[in-house]
């Protein structure tokens, strides 16, 4: 691979790199997985936004509209046994899933970044403590614990926020360990030594030198956390442990199941949330795979 060096004093042309936007689009063309993931996610966001413009959120709750109606022009996604407008329910449900996902994701990532940095940069005792805690908590069967906790809560206390919290509780260890190992590598790099020689303080090094280089990893960890959160809230809700009043996608399926929706011919009721969930999780998974290719230059197919 040739190194592109710069022109001599006489030549007037300076090599211009094309604009950032063009580079981004070209990159997306090469990294198709990331492109697909982002595209589907964008569509889902669009659906939610448009949804909120056309429906009345109150219709997402029981006894709002005539029951058990199949999809039609008036009710594009049909209605369910309890009298919920499915379009409204899906819209509100997607929004709530997003809230849980982002909240839990951000919280998990934040804890991971803070603990990971502290452990790696300050080392020794702090590092040992944090690492040991992570290593003890990791093998704990998450599903089991989540189910136990969720089912022991009073039904009225279960809101989407408690869901988010339950989900985060056992999810923060992985980003902590990943960020920690990245910081460990990075702090040995020579630009950190040079920063020290330039008089930068420890915190300066953490925030200004190391952290910016970890943004791809932090982004990947964030998407990973969002994925786990969305997935966890989904299966907890499917098991009937979610905030039952809310039209969370998992709840809808649980409700449909409990009323024997398939046997009664109300196929649209469980299918719609299922498809939505597959699209959400799928697009997040694709984004994770795409980011992996971005953050790890050796996996990159181009160049």
């Amino acid at each position, binding site marked *: 691979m040739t190194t*592109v060096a710069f022109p001599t*004093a006489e030549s007037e042309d300076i090599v211009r790199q094309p604009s950032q936007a063009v580079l981004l689009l070209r990159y997306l063309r090469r990294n198709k997985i990331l492109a697909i993931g982002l595209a589907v996610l964008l569509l889902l966001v669009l659906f939610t936004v448009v949804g909120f413009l056309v429906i009345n959120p109150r219709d997402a709750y029981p006894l709002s509209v005539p029951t058990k109606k199949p999809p039609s022009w008036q009710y594009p996604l049909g209605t369910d046994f309890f009298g919920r407008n499915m379009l409204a329910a899906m819209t509100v449900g997607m929004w709530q899933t997003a809230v849980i996902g982002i909240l839990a994701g951000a919280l998990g990532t934040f804890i991971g970044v803070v603990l990971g940095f502290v452990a790696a940069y300050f080392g020794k005792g702090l590092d040992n403590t944090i690492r040991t805690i992570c290593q003890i908590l990791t093998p704990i069967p998450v599903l089991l614990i989540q189910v136990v906790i969720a089912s022991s809560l009073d039904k009225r206390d279960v809101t989407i926020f408690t869901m988010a919290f339950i989900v985060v509780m056992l999810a923060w260890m992985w980003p902590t360990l990943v960020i920690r190992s990245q910081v460990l590598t990075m702090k040995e790099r020579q*630009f950190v030594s040079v920063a020290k020689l330039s008089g*930068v303080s420890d915190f300066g090094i953490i925030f200004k*030198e190391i952290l910016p280089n970890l943004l791809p990893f932090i982004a990947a960890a964030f998407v990973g956390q969002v994925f786990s959160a969305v997935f966890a809230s989904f299966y907890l809700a499917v098991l009937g442990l979610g905030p039952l009043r809310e039209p969370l996608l998992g709840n809808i399926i649980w409700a449909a199941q409990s009323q024997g929706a398939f046997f009664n011919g109300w196929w649209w009721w469980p299918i719609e949330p299922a498809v939505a969930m597959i699209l959400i999780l799928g697009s997040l998974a694709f984004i994770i795979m795409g980011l992996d290719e971005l953050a790890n230059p050796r996996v990159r197919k181009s160049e």
Partner: protein
Amino acid sequence: MANLLELKNVSKVYQRGLISTQATVALRDFSLTLNEDEPTILTVAGESGSGKTTLAMLLLGFISPTMGEIIYRGKNISRLGGRERLTYRREVQAVFQDPFAVFNPFYTVDHLLSVPIKRFRLAKSKTEARDKMEEALRAVGLRPEDVLGRFPHQLSGGQRQRINVARALLLKPRLLIADEPVSMVDASLRATILETLRNLQRDHGVSIIYITHDLTTAFHISKSIVVLYRGSVMEAGDVDRVIKNPQHPYTQLLVDSIPWPNLEQRWGAQPIKVREAVAGSEGCPFIGRCPHAMDICKTRPPLFEIEPHHTAACFLYDKRPQLAPEKLSEVLPV
């Protein structure tokens, strides 16, 4: 005459293993004094494992000595407090070997120059900072407009290393540790970079410790030289004398292996002896590869004075007067 730098019997030992500890002596009983009024260029030469990198890390305060003291302008560097520490940082700088590794890939190359300007308050305004950066870049033969605002991967290795040297120019330290500054740079650019370093010493009074394994460039740029092998001084003195007339078998091997760009000067007159016996920790470290090894070499040879400004640690010269390690600096001309 105040001393800029004093190393007093500095040793660095690494312990490995929890149960059966194995000690590696990276640097053994090393003493050196640099004078504040006589800026000089001193070469510390050796292969990998010789201790030269350890010495650099010690001088820059990244690691602390196991024994001995490092005194910078009268103060022990491991005991510096806040403001003094910042002054020390400002006055002792480095140019490293790898032109790419010193840049933070997230930022443009300006970052390398702007951060120390800010931290050491070298400029009172953004314009003044920019001016200083441009001046330093021009001094190393770069056009600021070609270089500022670019990312490190957009520039060539030679340009990056020049920016590194520009950083040193900008900071005008009192002591510059140059750790293999030209070994990863094209041969055609080496001359320019070495000349810049020499100008730093001559015109700006910067003392430079030039660390390398390349005796050719050492010969050209420095006045005095210390040859290290496995943490101990093998030979030291005026660079002309040591390279043109090496006395220690190790130095002779080094000089003999230099690939001179001269068809009449062939390398390889002395065959390379493969290491036989493993050197015990008590004897001469070169014993395993030395064609002249004798029984007495199982004890550590002291420094012997060969001639003024030339000393070697080898029992071949045991008839000559001995030199205490603390007096090493007397052999090094400025």
